[in-house]
């Protein structure tokens, strides 16, 4: 168990290091997020009221698109040079390999989110600094959900033809309950009318989602990686 967690950290560190060294997928998905924000602002030019009403939705759409790009790379990063084979052949158990990948994707997506949140605030003239801490909690929980499900599907689709098409088709429907929670909570936080009971209800939803899918993925991943 402990060895598995250590190996997971090694792998997460490796992923983060290579990613921060080349900054390729980070730049790409951050600029993708920005481009989408701009596109949205063209597509929907709305008044202030409506903007607040859809702010959570907008934010999580952008985050889930950026997230799909990041998790798409998660296992795909191991394909050149057949590194995935080497990882699977090593004594590292499959679940810790998976966990390492999910952790790395989580931090990468957090970085992208941290970049695009202020831009979002500026662009749509939405102030979020007042609810920073609860927002951070929401974002972290929902981001972990996106990345853990995403990394799992990334492992599933890594050898599939049309990976870049198949991943979103599978991923988004599974994420819908999570996104509903994240969007609802964020909208209420940003519009400043959040009851404590509602908040707890949303948080419970997010945590339940994260827990269920993390457990499922960790348990099933060995079957997927070695067939």
């Amino acid at each position, binding site marked *: 168990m402990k060895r598995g967690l250590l190996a997971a950290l090694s*792998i997460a560190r*490796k992923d983060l290091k*290579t990613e921060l*060294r080349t900054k390729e997928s980070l730049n790409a998905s951050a600029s993708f997020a920005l481009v989408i924000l701009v596109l949205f602002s063209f597509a929907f030019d709305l008044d202030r009221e409506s903007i607040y009403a859809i702010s959570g939705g907008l934010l999580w759409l952008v985050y889930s698109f950026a997230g799909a790009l990041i998790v798409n790379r998660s296992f795909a990063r191991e394909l050149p040079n057949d590194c995935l084979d080497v*990882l699977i*052949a*090593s004594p590292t158990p499959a679940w810790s390999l998976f966990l390492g990948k999910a952790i790395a994707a989580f931090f990468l997506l957090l970085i992208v989110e941290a970049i695009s949140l202020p831009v979002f605030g500026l662009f749509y003239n939405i102030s979020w600094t007042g609810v920073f801490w609860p927002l951070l909690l929401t974002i972290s929980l929902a981001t972990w959900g996106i990345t853990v499900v995403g990394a799992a599907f990334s492992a599933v689709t890594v050898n599939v033809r049309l990976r870049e098409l198949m991943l979103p088709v599978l991923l988004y429907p599974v994420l819908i309950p999570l996104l509903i929670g994240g969007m609802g909570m964020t909208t209420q936080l940003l519009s400043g009318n959040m009851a404590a009971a509602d908040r707890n209800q949303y948080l419970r939803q997010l945590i339940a989602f994260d827990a269920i899918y993390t457990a499922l993925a960790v348990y099933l991943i060995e079957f997927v990686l*070695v067939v």
Partner: protein
Amino acid sequence: MLAVAVDRVWKYFGDYPALRGASLSVEPGACLALLGRNGAGKTTLLRILAGLSKPGQGEALILGAPSRDEGVRKRIGYLGHGIGVYDDLSAVENLRLFGRLMEMENPARAADSALERVGLANVKDGLAREFSRGMRQRLAIARAFLHDPDVLFLDEPFTSLDDRAIAVLQRILSEAQARGATIVMSTHQIREAMELASQVALLERGRIVHAGERTAEMLADPTWLYRTFGEAQ
């Protein structure tokens, strides 16, 4: 105890049996050349032995344990078609990472000595991306031999290598043999293989049709084996 014991292994790709009851046993310290035509199942068998794939039926034991066993996996080395190192890490970072994943005592020291062995010590901080093909191949060899594995699986290791790279690989392989390591390699370059091999096995449509000592005929005439035990042209 046998180093590799394959007992009537079947592997289906769908309903197509790529391996149909292949059986093979390799003594510790032997060097086995696994020959066979395209599609005979060499890669499939090696992947099962390296724990990258599971047999459908039958059993493949490495050093007496199933190949997905964690204890065994520490003692296996595998070199497939890909070089298996990260382009965006430096040579030494790559090896340290694999050292950690192999749960070695001292990954840093092992990485340095492995780089020494393949002659990359002076470029150890260069990114693998910037290496020439020959250097990358050496790094791959260093990676596969990093933890001094007891059993080695090599899939067409000589393909597309030039004379110098072949020389490095041959040297490292004979060092491993001298240590008492067991080697199983597939190849189409029968001449190169015969020089190293002590044993030969011929795979034909998923079955081992011949296994035994390498004899003088084989060295002299590379197609002898196919002609004697294989199907007609």
